[in-house]
């Protein structure tokens, strides 16, 4: 059944299930691509020396946080889970840096 525009259009601000804006998605996508390219360049050119592992893991932390908060929408839906999830990323990457 096709509903009228009046019933289908929902004001984003008033809707608790408001979706992620496409601009935020696009900016996140570009940021993720940039981080991936930068990681590759830094690693291949051996620019960071002994700091390479911490630097790459820090970039990974940012990328994981971007994917979960924007692509997986935890910054809008299920916000209570965002901090524990980021905490798990932090613990994992700290463990990796320490055991590297």
């Amino acid at each position, binding site marked *: 059944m096709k509903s009228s525009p009046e019933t289908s259009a929902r004001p984003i601000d008033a809707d608790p299930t408001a979706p992620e804006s496409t601009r935020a998605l696009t900016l996140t996508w570009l940021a993720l691509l940039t981080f991936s390219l930068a990681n590759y360049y830094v690693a291949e050119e051996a620019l960071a020396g002994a700091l390479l592992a911490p630097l*790459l893991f820090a970039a990974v932390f940012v990328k994981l946080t971007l994917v979960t908060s924007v692509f997986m929408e935890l910054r809008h839906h299920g916000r209570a889970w965002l901090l524990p999830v980021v905490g798990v990323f932090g613990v994992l990457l700290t463990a990796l840096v320490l055991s590297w």
Partner: protein
Amino acid sequence: MAEVHDTTSRSWEARAETLPTMAVIAPKRPSAGESVDVEAMSARRRDLRLVGDTAWWVFLTAEFLTLCLFFIVFAVMRRDHLEEFRAAQKLLSPHLALVNSLVLITSGYAVARGVAAMRGVARSTSARRAATWIFVAAALGLVFVAIKGSEYADKLGAGLTLSSGHFWFFYYFLTGFHFLHVLLGIGFLSWVGSRLLLEPHRPGLLTQAESCAAFWHMLDLVWILLFPLLYLL
């Protein structure tokens, strides 16, 4: 053009009713004369509610945490067999892994745009547009599979198998686990895309698409970790 309306899953009130009754979110029974802060309760429930199917999130979390343990085991093994790992890593192709990273991230973006299109965020409430994004994501998934498959063929052709050493065990185990999930994800995406074209008013379709998107993004997360661990460091 058909529009996507998933009234069974999009209604916040309907979803709130389906939340599990847990002590942490269960409303406290008001005593005599005490008023119930409905707004606060609603906001609290909203903060806990995830997109898609909650049970699916539990499954994804369990999978991701299990893989996290293997990543730590990999790091410890690498420290103990550093020369072997470094020598083996030189046989990999970081540029192919970079291309795969860009492909998978872009497919994750396409899935997110597909779900956004289903909700009509950009006033593009057409099922066809959402299906296009979803199929683009599935196609990019196939590109990933093709590149990874060629890498597997190259390594297996060179006689490097699961039993060729510690590094190669982890390489095949971790990337193979991810590879199989990508194949599964492509199947899920294709199903959602086809439903969008054939049955755009199917009840619960948006929830299924959101769950499928969460699965695909979980694969993004795993690859974001695998890329530097196996190829760059």
